[in-house]
């Protein structure tokens, strides 16, 4: 996994609640056996109209959101299906950080495993950013080590993160490799069963 310490990027605003993983990556794209190449299918049914022309009404198709690397959305982002393809698609599209007031549990875990940083932020801050991002983009600087987000006005907003995941991301660690160092404990457990 790629290490993640700090990221500065522009914001895309998706002011919807309960964005489920079926929307993030629709089922017709789950048949691939690779981990890569899912970005082109991200939000497929929302981004594209019939005949694969871009839907001009969809937020991510607004010119000012082009090249964004931080996605902001509303409550319960990533709910529903466990498909990790959702995290792969967001990352492949170019997102490094997802900010929302709350997330679906499985998506939240899946994101960490891929070095995509999901951040829970207070609802009022998220709503103000969602509103601000509608008409024009803006930059945020995410510092994982300090656990802060700095906005363009220079204000610092702190966030909580599980120390376990913080450590994994900062050092870009291979979780399976680490777990295999606990082989003695696994053997002991199995022997006692």
């Amino acid at each position: 996994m790629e290490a993640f310490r700090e990221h500065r990027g522009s914001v895309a605003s998706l002011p919807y609640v309960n964005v489920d993983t079926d929307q993030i990556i629709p089922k017709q794209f789950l048949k691939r056996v690779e981990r890569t190449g899912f970005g082109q299918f991200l939000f497929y049914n929302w981004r594209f109209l019939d005949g694969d022309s871009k839907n001009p009404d969809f937020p991510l198709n607004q010119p000012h959101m082009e090249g964004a690397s931080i996605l902001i959305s509303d409550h319960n982002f990533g709910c529903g299906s466990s498909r990790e393809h959702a995290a792969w698609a967001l990352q492949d599209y170019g997102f490094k950080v997802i900010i929302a007031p709350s997330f679906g549990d499985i998506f939240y875990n899946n994101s960490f495993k891929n070095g995509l940083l999901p951040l829970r932020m207070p609802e009022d801050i998220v709503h103000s950013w969602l509103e601000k991002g509608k008409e024009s983009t803006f930059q945020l600087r995410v510092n994982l080590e300090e656990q802060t987000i700095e906005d363009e006005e220079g204000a610092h907003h702190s966030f909580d993160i599980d120390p376990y995941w913080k450590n994994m991301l900062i050092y870009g660690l291979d979780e399976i490799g680490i777990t295999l160092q606990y082989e003695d404990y696994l053997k002991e457990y199995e022997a006692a069963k």
Partner: protein
Amino acid sequence: MGKTIIEKIWDRHKVYQEEAKPDLLYIDLHLVHEVTSPQAFEGLRLAGRDVRRPDLTYATMDHNIPTKDRWSITDQIAKKQIDVLVDNCNEFGVELAGLDSPNNGIVHIIGPELGLTQPGKTIVCGDSHTSTHGAFGALAFGIGTSEVEHVLATQSLWQNRPKTMEVKIDGRLSSGVSAKDIILALIAKYGVNFGTGHVVEYRGEAIRGLTMEERMTICNMSIEGGARAGLISPDQVTFDYLEGRPNVPQGEAYQAQVEEWKQLATDEDAAFDSTLTLDASEVKPMVTWGTNPGQGVAIDGTVPAPEEGKTETEQRAIRQSLDYMGLTPGTKMEDIQIQHVFLGSCTNARLSDLREAARYLIGKKVAKGVRAMVVPGSMKVKRQAEEEGLSKVFIDAGFDWRDAGCSMCLGMNPDQVPEGERCASTSNRNFEGRQGKGARTHLMSPVMAAAAAVHGRFVDVRELDVTTQA
């Protein structure tokens, strides 16, 4: 103070524990299917790792497979995914219920059928509806593909201890009201994220009165309320279901096992982090009108208006759902006409679901202009239904009788609902595009779906007195 079943199972599976770290939790059963596993096996191969416990791993193919002519998969990408699963199972020594196996079926239907699902186990699968197995008093939850790879390699997962939630459901169910209605009513009442970060235990007299198959329907949809997992303390109903199944100890060993399972139930003085309640006697047959499982009303209700949303965001969400579903606020649910009926999925494709629907359908015909299909949850359910004559009832009524699979629940195989058309579905998700691009899904119980098939619109099965139709 006593412990909840959640804490008991958790504590028995801790391999390693350290301050400021998640616990390393042992996994007793890992179920695998074709869609969420190929990248995990590939990861093992690239790192030169083995499957640590193939004996605790069991695979099936269910999401992609056709339910008609199951051997002729015309979609080459789907076919490749299925071939890759066969190859991976061979290479890593994992048992597979393939297309030719009598045990093949939807992963959450065959686990219990084969007795692999048992009280007290930790069970994972790369599928959010893994919570189904919680009906047996197992701690069962869905995981992503990276976690699938982690379990394949280590038979364990780093997990933070979840919060515990009691959902207390007392009161008696009225006639014509089913387990599906309980869970849809619960999610409609408390929303699609009431359970986020929690493992839910369903308790109360209404739950005790349910059969195992009904309990599975409830636990299955825990994820639709946002819960990590949902479970029910095992009791005699659980033990009776498991007795004599393959993979369950027999004879004296079974008796000893039951004594052990009895210790799992939540202690009387145990405390939960939070409690929700639902009165089962007030639950009516439910139908969803929107694009998430919480957007549902009783059959005698109407389509809501955006103004009923409490916040601007909620109002916008309702407007977006109504727009997608092509519905006008104030429309009576009973006036909504349908073109498709899907009876299937890991939520409602067990034998009792098929019996409920068939009992109503005896001597009746599917309405003109309605395409109806039954997709049994497993090949075993299919065989049993054929032996009992249920298949004949469905076929005589005008239903298509299919082979097992996930089918139209998510339309990864050829079974899809065309754009703009409406489906009465016994599945678990009414998300946009779930059953096909632009498809409009309404979730409900099997008997409600059967009645919708006959009338071409939603009807209140309580008024049909379905219980005396047999």
